[in-house]
């Protein structure tokens, strides 16, 4: 892991405020906590702020959430910099999180990484059209379907360089892609159908 910093001032928006819908949602979240413990809602609120801001946390959003919860700004910054899933730098419209932990590596994450580098560029960089960015992350917990990536909210599993490249093409063209295993397999069941418990009970 390396030092994570806020995005440079020229990339920061002037201000940030929750949309009416998010504001209502945030107030609902606050109600979950006993009086005086509202600051516990900081992670869900930062998360929602990140979604609203387009997948990353601008500095005004961190301040906004801190003020919203009545805590010092530094307290929100501590949380935002602690958790790597809060992106402090702008990301592409499709943010690819490539699992690079051992099972995915053994099953071909290297190839996916090559695709990323060729199609998108260096980790953390955003493509010129603003559509893609990628980072390598630790285990995303879908080892049985390795190798896999997460793009925005969805998992894409059982990838090869070709299928991954196709997914990126489809997304770039604005078409929908089916998330989950990209081969003939039901969720994380064995490839090619069940191998046990085949008889009816």
């Amino acid at each position, binding site marked *: *892991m390396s*030092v994570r910093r806020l995005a440079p001032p020229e990339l920061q928006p002037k201000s940030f405020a929750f949309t009416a819908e998010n504001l209502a949602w945030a107030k609902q979240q606050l109600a979950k906590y006993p009086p005086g413990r509202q600051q516990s809602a900081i992670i869900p609120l930062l998360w929602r702020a990140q979604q609203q801001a387009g997948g990353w946390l601008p500095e005004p959003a961190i301040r906004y959430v801190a003020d919203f919860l009545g805590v010092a700004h*530094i307290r929100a910054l501590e949380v935002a910099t602690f958790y790597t899933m809060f992106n402090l730098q702008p990301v592409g419209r499709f943010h690819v999180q490539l699992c690079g932990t051992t099972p995915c590596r053994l099953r071909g994450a290297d190839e996916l990484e090559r695709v990323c580098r060729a199609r998108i560029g260096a980790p953390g960089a955003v493509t010129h059209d603003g559509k893609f960015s990628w980072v390598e992350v630790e285990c995303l917990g879908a080892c049985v379907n390795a190798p896999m990536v997460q793009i925005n909210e969805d998992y894409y599993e059982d990838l090869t360089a070709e299928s991954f490249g196709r997914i990126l093409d489809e997304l770039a063209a604005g078409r929908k892609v089916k998330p989950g295993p990209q081969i003939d397999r039901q969720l994380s069941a064995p490839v090619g159908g069940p191998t046990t418990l085949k008889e009816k009970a």
Partner: protein
Amino acid sequence: MMRLIVDGREIDVPPEYTLLQACEAAGAEIPRFCFHERLSIAGNCRMCLVEVVGIPKPQASCAMAVKDLPPNKDGSPKKVNTRTPMVKKAREGVMEFLLINHPLDCPICDQGGECDLQDQAMAYGVDASRYAENKRAVEDKYIGPLVKTIMTRCIHCTRCIRFSTEVAGVPELGAIGRGEDMEITTYLEHAMTSELQGNVVDLCPVGALTSKPYAFSARPWELTKTQSIDVMDALGSAIRIDTRGREVMRILPRVNDDVNEEWISDKTRHVVDGLRTQRLDQPYVRDQGRLRPASWAEAFAAIVAKVKATEPQRIGAIAGDLCAAEEMYALKDLLTRLGSANIDARQDGAAFDPSWGRATYLFNATIAGIDRADALLIIGSNPRREAAVLNARIRKRWRAGHFPIALIGEKCDLTYPYDYLGGGAETLAGIGKSRFAEAVRRAERPIVLLGAGAVTRDDGAAVAALAARTAIELGAVKHGWNGFSVLHHAASRVAALDLGLVPGAGGKTAAQMAAGAVDVLFLLAADEIDVKPGPFVIYIGTHGDRGAHRADVILPGAAYPEKSGLYVNTEGRVQLANRAGFPPGDAREDWAILRALSERLGARLPYDSLAALRERLFTAHPPLMRLGEVVPGDIEDIGKLAKRGGDPRRDVLKSPIDDFYLTNPIARASAVMAECSALAQAAARTAAE
């Protein structure tokens, strides 16, 4: 009580003790970085590991309570070892990890010689490094004009974060990132705004946070350390003045649980450079409108000529805020011998009068008494500006819970929440009906804190009487508890009132004298009063400040580190400030100037040494002899004050201090204080927008 066996020694400790406290009670020494008695427990440095027999792994003793130890099956007391090879090995392992990323720059580090890490590495460090990988390097942060950061040295103990959050109450410091990449900083490197921020330098166990104004100026072993008393506010915080040669290099706090615990304000700590600049180092005489350097003889001759030509009733004297008891006693003595009753130490016009009784102008609850109090009403005061360390004490009590606080006066950020009742005296008069009053009546030991600023108005006596009446009505004054507490902001004030430095029969007040009711006016380091044209002003003081600019004759005196003097703090505690250096150039100690001058004036003061002066002072005012003690006032006086009555006006009861950093001539001469002041003013402007 629970029984433990620490290093073979049986000891009974309360169950809520931590293992570290228990080990210390048993006389064992436990190394630590993150643990601090006055801060919450973090348990993140792991240096305090001990062995608990029955638990396979070493335990962090600071974070393990005695009552949480699993009991032995046979019910025998738990054994704790602090000196076994296992403990030593464990601590050596921790030390090795700490040193992995700690730079080996002790020779250029300001903490060198007084560094916890350095000291403990002597006991637990290994001589060579096994670490071949790249070391971590961290960018230095700007966190204000007082604290310099060299963040590569940080060992992540988080003491500074806990201090600013818990004690100072201004949660500005934090740790961003995580693991090896954790970094201490303020939000986007804004300057800290606490008046107590200098204390994080003392708390830092390594050289990550060091004093910026003191950077690279001295090594601890070259300094002569003198225990003394601070005069920047009326608390009389215990300080240590470090000098090299004749120069004061820095000021550090000493532990005094009754007054300042172990904190001091930034003004106390960083006023040092003000002791070097703008100093008066020789007498001056005004000649054709301009001050010109003169000899002592010339200066005295000018004074003698003027005094001899003036009627005694037209001679007066005003004592300033930083004066010690000795020189104020000598000044009063001199004026009495000259036949004048025009003497006053209340430059700000505070209405306190010694004839009301001592209890009417003391912080009767005592500073340590705040810890026992269970309700607080603040009247016309901003304790954060008037006595920052006292404010931290109030905050500490508030954090302990069940401590209703209300404020009458100007709204301000005190670092703890309070009920704002209103601004003026009419709120005070009508407080009986408020919800807060009900809470106070249920309290056993409420404090009514009256800011000295609230009684500086011309209706000050009526405000004081009303405050006393309120205190009695709310049950703050009763047998065994006197909660009527006056918070002064001038270090000399209580001693001056004790010594009776108020106008005698037919005497004139400071305001009258400054307005021209006298022809010859002695200003003993009195800089906070504006003397109108007219009187011939003799200024005895240390700095080329307001008093010196107005003066016709300047006699250079000694600043507080340059003289031995008695100070009485706001609670009535008599404390002795020791001399750490000598006044510059031809300057002399103030009492000696008065003694020499008295001889020329034909009114010789009968003491030739400070000891002889103190002897007479103690004979005349025996309570001043009780060093270090609080000499309490008579509780009946509060009742008498309450009966004085009066009808105060309705305007807001304001604190007299607008700028915490520039309250006296020494602070105004200090470049560091000026920078802090500018930052604070800018921050206040931004907050207002």
